[in-house]
């Protein structure tokens, strides 16, 4: 029962039969599903508009400039202006491009991401689809982005597009492993792949502290790994090599203009929302309030607050860090994040095995031991990676 139908049920009982009929119509699965779709899409599109403005303003402030402030008071109409500009721009398709693939690529990029938004629990009752294998669904859907990037890059018949697409695919494949490994820890500790159950497992608070996964050593390390890999998966800076404006023009989006470009842009932001939503669900307690006495505030509020905080974190990181080089990116993924994620997995197993400790201070002891392992691994791997930092001629062993 969604709150929507509950409300209608109440109303139908109170007043006459025509309302009851309306209730029957409104609780029909098709109607409920359509309403859920419209709400999810509409809310995310509105959020997209707000976030683009927030990002431009925030980046501006980080660079000591005011950001867009012309369209409307304080520039709040800037997203509308951008949208009108994008829609009315000429849609240019290169003459030698593969017309059909070029047309399909933005759609293949956007459609799966909107599917991923459907399985996230936005509140105690606000779950459009509760899949038993929700996390797996999320990652299965995410793979379509790689294919879409390839389609866009290849069909444009432009070397920069192809280079960007190759970079995008290599990056997405490399960072998918740490991403999955960091979520695997949560799945193992919760014992479920359903996002609803994962959120439900984080509700219990001990000593006034929230029971979120991030407040455990494996959860903290997992969250940091997840955040890094998520930034790379959604092509956010400092991992925005696939777009790298200063190197390869616009990456696989070089030959796109007008509304198709807007669709790519939208897909990128929706991807960021989806992956942030997954992070919230897995590590930050989903729609749970931070403290028990705040539970009267609706869950959707906490979800949106956490989402805004995470997205602002992404914007902050974008304003701070320079772009990585391609080989640094690969080294970072395979030689740092992967071993760290595996060690984090081992830490989670230790945490699980020591759950039976009963002596006084056992919890603190467990916490410190596990945190020590993770922090030691982080320091050691980081030192090793920094020591390896030599630049020399590159050898192309596979592409000859």
């Amino acid at each position, binding site marked *: 029962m969604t709150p929507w139908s509950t409300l209608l049920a109440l109303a139908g009982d109170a007043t006459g039969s025509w309302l009851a009929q309306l209730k029957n119509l409104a609780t029909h699965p098709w109607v409920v599903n359509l309403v859920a779709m419209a709400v999810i899409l509409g809310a995310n599109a509105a959020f997209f508009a707000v976030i683009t403005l927030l990002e431009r303003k925030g980046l501006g*402030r980080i660079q000591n*400039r005011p950001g867009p402030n012309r369209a409307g008071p304080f520039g709040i109409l800037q997203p509308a202006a951008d949208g009108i500009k994008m829609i009315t721009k000429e849609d240019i398709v290169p003459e030698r491009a593969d017309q059909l693939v070029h047309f399909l690529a933005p759609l293949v990029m956007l459609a799966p991401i909107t599917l991923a938004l459907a399985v996230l629990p936005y509140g105690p009752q606000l779950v459009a689809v509760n899949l038993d294998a929700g996390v797996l669904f999320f990652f299965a859907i995410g793979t379509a982005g790689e294919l879409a990037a390839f389609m866009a890059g290849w069909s444009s018949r432009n070397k920069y597009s192809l280079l960007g697409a190759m970079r995008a695919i290599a990056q997405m494949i490399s960072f998918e492993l740490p991403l999955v490994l960091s979520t695997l820890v949560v799945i193992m500790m919760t014992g479920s792949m359903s996002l609803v159950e994962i959120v439900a497992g984080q509700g219990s608070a001990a000593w006034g502290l929230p029971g979120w996964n991030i407040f455990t050593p494996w959860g903290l390390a997992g969250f940091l790994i997840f955040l890094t890999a998520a930034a790379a998966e959604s092509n956010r800076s400092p991992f925005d090599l696939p777009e790298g404006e200063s190197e390869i023009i616009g990456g696989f989006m070089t030959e796109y203009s007008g509304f198709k470009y807007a669709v790519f842009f939208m897909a990128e932001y929706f991807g960021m929302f989806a992956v942030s939503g997954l992070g919230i669900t897995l590590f930050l307690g989903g729609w749970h309030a931070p403290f028990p006495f705040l539970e009267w505030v609706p869950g959707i509020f906490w979800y949106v607050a956490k989402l805004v905080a995470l997205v602002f974190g992404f914007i902050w990181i974008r304003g701070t860090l320079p772009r990585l080089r391609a080989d640094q990116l690969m080294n970072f993924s395979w030689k740092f994040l992967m071993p760290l994620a595996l060690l984090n997995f081992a830490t989670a197993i230790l945490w699980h095995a020591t759950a039976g400790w009963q002596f006084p201070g056992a919890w603190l002891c467990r916490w410190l031991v596990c945190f020590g392992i993770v922090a030691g691994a982080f320091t050691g791997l*980081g030192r090793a990676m920094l020591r390896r930092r030599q630049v020399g001629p590159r050898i192309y062993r596979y592409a000859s």
Partner: protein
Amino acid sequence: MPGFGIIKGLKETARNFFGSYHDPGRFVTIQYPEEKREHHENYRSFPFLVYDGDPVKGLRCVSCKICEKECPPQCIYIVPEQDGSGKLLKFPRIFDIDVSVCMGCQICVEVCPFDSIKMDQEFEVSTADRFGGLILNRSKLAKSNEYYHQIRPAEATAVDAQLAAERERQQAKAAAAKSPAPAAAATREKKP
């Protein structure tokens, strides 16, 4: 410990972020159409012609065409005035500068022996007419010496002093030429 550099960077950007709200002095940008940046005196855009007094008759230009020859992108076009008999006068009938070609190199100013062409500071030259609007003719180029003083006070004063000295020397020369003229003529006659 690795990773602290990132935190340091994040701290710096956060300081910028919050600082920009309570300290407007941090802003590196200005709101252009409303407020404009103060120029240095040496800032230059495109050339203009200086006149003293009358905007047409007072032009210092003698249409010697040195600047036309020296201009690297060849953006200056000069036609001298002629009198009824076809004799060239020391005055430009047409003086055009195509500012879409001009690169602001200031060579015309360097070579002008009469200090008649100088660099302007006007930069808002955008126009809807792509061809006609960017060719400045004689009347558009002519600007008074007072304007020159206004935009470059130091340089204009130096130029004025130099011109005055030149004029004085000319007058002295003319005066000298008037009185000992017969003697000079006589000595010249004797020579061959």
